[in-house]
């Protein structure tokens, strides 16, 4: 049976049935050599909101390499570090101010690249929109490459059936929008999380509510409500065909007990018992068993929501609650004294101050990513087989677009606009690491494509959103529709 035919059959079986069937019949390209089939794979999406320019990171250009260095975005030679035995560059720099923000900063990438180069893959591409929200969403749907489903939804469908919260999304704007493939079961869509530090409280109906009767009494009341009062309610009877009512009942009577039974209100709680701001024990709550570990890794989690996101992301994966998590910075400014943690508009502060915005944001995202990877590497997924969570994870730094390359007369302080041409950074042991697919023309600063099968650079070619979309899913062992390219060059095996 061809893939297309099977997909059509699965679609007719209905979304839920398809989900179950996919779990047993789908055989991804290259899956045979990718380890224990029963272990799930995990997708972490780090939303580089605002336009993360790939030539301000791993594909940076030195002045000495470009005949047009005065008019394009290139760096003083000393600020671009070559990484031994690697095609990647790293930008290490410091400045006395970030545009109009009069605070000095120092940003480094070389430590991250040296440490993680073997899991790093850069894929060049050219997008289709310079509108933030649209481009954000397209970076996740591959510009509607597969019926409008996002990469996270595809991963949730493949590996998340039966989990409490297969797909959790803590990012914003277009990165938080659900896909448009209505054939997917409801559980494959993302659960949005706005406050990662306090969110675990929403995973129990009564724990930590002051004055709430004992849990067994609450359970009795729920039973009366669900089986008698609502069961006999004229309202429920009249509106029994309502999708919202059916969904509510399923969530209330099936999913909610699962969430409570897993004690996620505790296991995902990253907060310390710290009265008066966080009086957990006064409310019968306790920190999760891994809370101290994640607080050590992300010590500014109370000040920086993205650190809290990363902490929660780890716990969601580690506790096998989710198979895909998405995190991303806010567009709000975040300062720690005179340290710029998050510039206003995140990467998009490049409009005002390109170089500082890119440098600070790359430093920020790589730093968080580094700590998250370390936690996942230290966490066994299958101890007997020596497989860690990181061994089965793929981290996709999704971004909406690149930035315009032009600058005036070699100025260091310049602004940039949105530009379709760019590239994406991905990390995973399942990817072909220490590799740049495609390349960058030092004369223009524009990237060019590659052969999807061999990975050979091809200056006459540009890759697009579906290439990245397909490559991410295929590396995770997910069979993609026949219309999508086989991105063999992105996979390690």
């Amino acid at each position, binding site marked *: 049976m061809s893939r297309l035919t099977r997909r059509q059959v699965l679609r007719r079986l209905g979304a839920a049935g398809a989900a179950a069937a996919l779990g047993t019949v789908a055989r991804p390209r290259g899956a045979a050599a990718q380890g224990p089939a029963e272990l799930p794979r995990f997708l972490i999406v780090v939303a580089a909101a605002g336009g993360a320019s790939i030539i301000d990171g791993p594909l940076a250009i030195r002045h000495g390499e470009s005949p047009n260095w005065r008019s394009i975005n290139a760096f003083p030679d000393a600020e671009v570090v070559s990484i031994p035995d690697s095609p990647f560059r790293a930008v290490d720099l410091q400045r006395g101010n970030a545009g109009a923000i009069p605070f000095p900063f120092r940003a480094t990438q070389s430590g991250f690249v040296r440490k993680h180069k073997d899991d790093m893959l850069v894929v060049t591409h050219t997008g289709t929109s310079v509108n933030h*929200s649209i481009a954000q969403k397209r970076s996740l749907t591959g510009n509607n490459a597969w019926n409008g489903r996002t990469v996270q939804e595809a991963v949730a469908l493949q590996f998340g059936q039966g989990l409490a919260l297969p797909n959790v999304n803590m990012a914003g704007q277009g990165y938080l929008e659900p896909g448009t493939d209505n054939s997917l079961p409801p559980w494959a869509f993302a659960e949005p999380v*706005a406050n990662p530090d306090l969110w675990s409280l929403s995973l129990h109906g009564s724990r930590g509510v002051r004055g709430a009767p004992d849990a067994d009494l609450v359970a009795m009341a729920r039973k009366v409500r669900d089986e008698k009062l609502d069961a006999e309610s004229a309202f429920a*009877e*009249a509106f029994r065909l309502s999708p919202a009512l059916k969904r509510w009942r399923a969530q209330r009577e099936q999913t*909610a007990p699962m969430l409570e039974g897993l004690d996620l209100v505790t296991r995902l709680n990253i907060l310390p018992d710290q009265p008066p701001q966080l009086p957990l024990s006064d409310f019968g709550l306790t920190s999760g068993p891994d809370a101290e570990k994640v607080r050590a890794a992300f010590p500014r989690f109370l000040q920086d929501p993205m650190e809290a996101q990363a902490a929660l992301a780890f716990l969601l994966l580690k506790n096998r609650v989710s198979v895909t998590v998405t995190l991303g910075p806010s567009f709000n400014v975040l300062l720690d004294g005179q340290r710029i943690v998050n510039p206003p508009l995140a990467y998009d502060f490049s409009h005002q101050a390109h170089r500082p915005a890119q440098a600070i944001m790359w430093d920020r995202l790589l730093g968080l990513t580094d700590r998250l990877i370390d936690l996942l590497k230290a966490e066994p997924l299958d101890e007997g087989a020596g497989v860690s969570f990181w061994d089965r994870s793929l981290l996709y730094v999704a971004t909406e677009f690149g930035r315009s390359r032009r600058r005036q007369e070699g100025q260091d302080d310049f602004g940039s606009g949105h530009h379709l041409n760019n590239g994406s950074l991905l990390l995973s042991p399942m990817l072909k690491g220490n590799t740049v697919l495609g390349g960058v023309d030092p004369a223009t600063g524009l990237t060019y494509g590659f052969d999807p099968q061999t990975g050979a650079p091809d200056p006459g070619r540009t890759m697009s959103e579906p290439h990245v979309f397909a490559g991410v899913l295929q590396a995770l062992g997910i069979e993609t529709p026949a219309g999508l390219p086989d991105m063999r060059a992105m996979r390690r095996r």
Partner: protein
Amino acid sequence: MRRDAWMRVFGAALLALGLVACEEGRAPVTADGPGGGGGAPGTADAATPPPPAADAGPPTAQRANLRFKGGLRLRNDFAQALELPAAEVCTELGRYDCVDVVHGVTLGGVDPYEKGLYEARPVTGVSTPLAVERMALSACGRAVDRDLAAGEGGVFGALPVADGALTDVEAEAVAATLDGLYKRALLRPVTPSEVAHLRGLYRDVAAKGGAAPARDWAVLACFTTLTSLEMVLY
């Protein structure tokens, strides 16, 4: 009987037959009302109208376009029903407002400034029912404690309580309290069946041997009402 009256009765009879014949025993309600109209003109005199179907129950709404009320509406409804200031309906850890700070997006709200989330999600999230339960338990606990301490007034002040227990669960004051709660929250009287179920809940709660079964039951009766389908969807 006048012709138009007969036609109405006949129409109702046809509707009743339709209800019985309907696959699941309920005829859809259309925009024109149950059955879509008033019977079959010209045939009303041809048959003797059968008696209306006994206890047919409510008709089924075909366009059952229910929506989740969302955190803000629920907070306001809880506050109004229980005579609480909106700010006292629910806080987490005694400090952080459940709707404004902690569970806003979970409760179907937006977060334009931090998340760029400008439109509410079209469907409820996995943890939404639990967040609603937390709000209800918090609000109910406050209202019950306030009213029982006052010993009169409010929503629960008329309950006959002595030594932490209801003196008589069959007392009229119990039914009257539940009726008042339903009228405040659901804008309709409580039914005898609902009173019976909630009295049964009290017996179960009391059988657990807690120190304050009346208080626990009042909170839970309030909780079942505020988290009922009729309350959270509209």
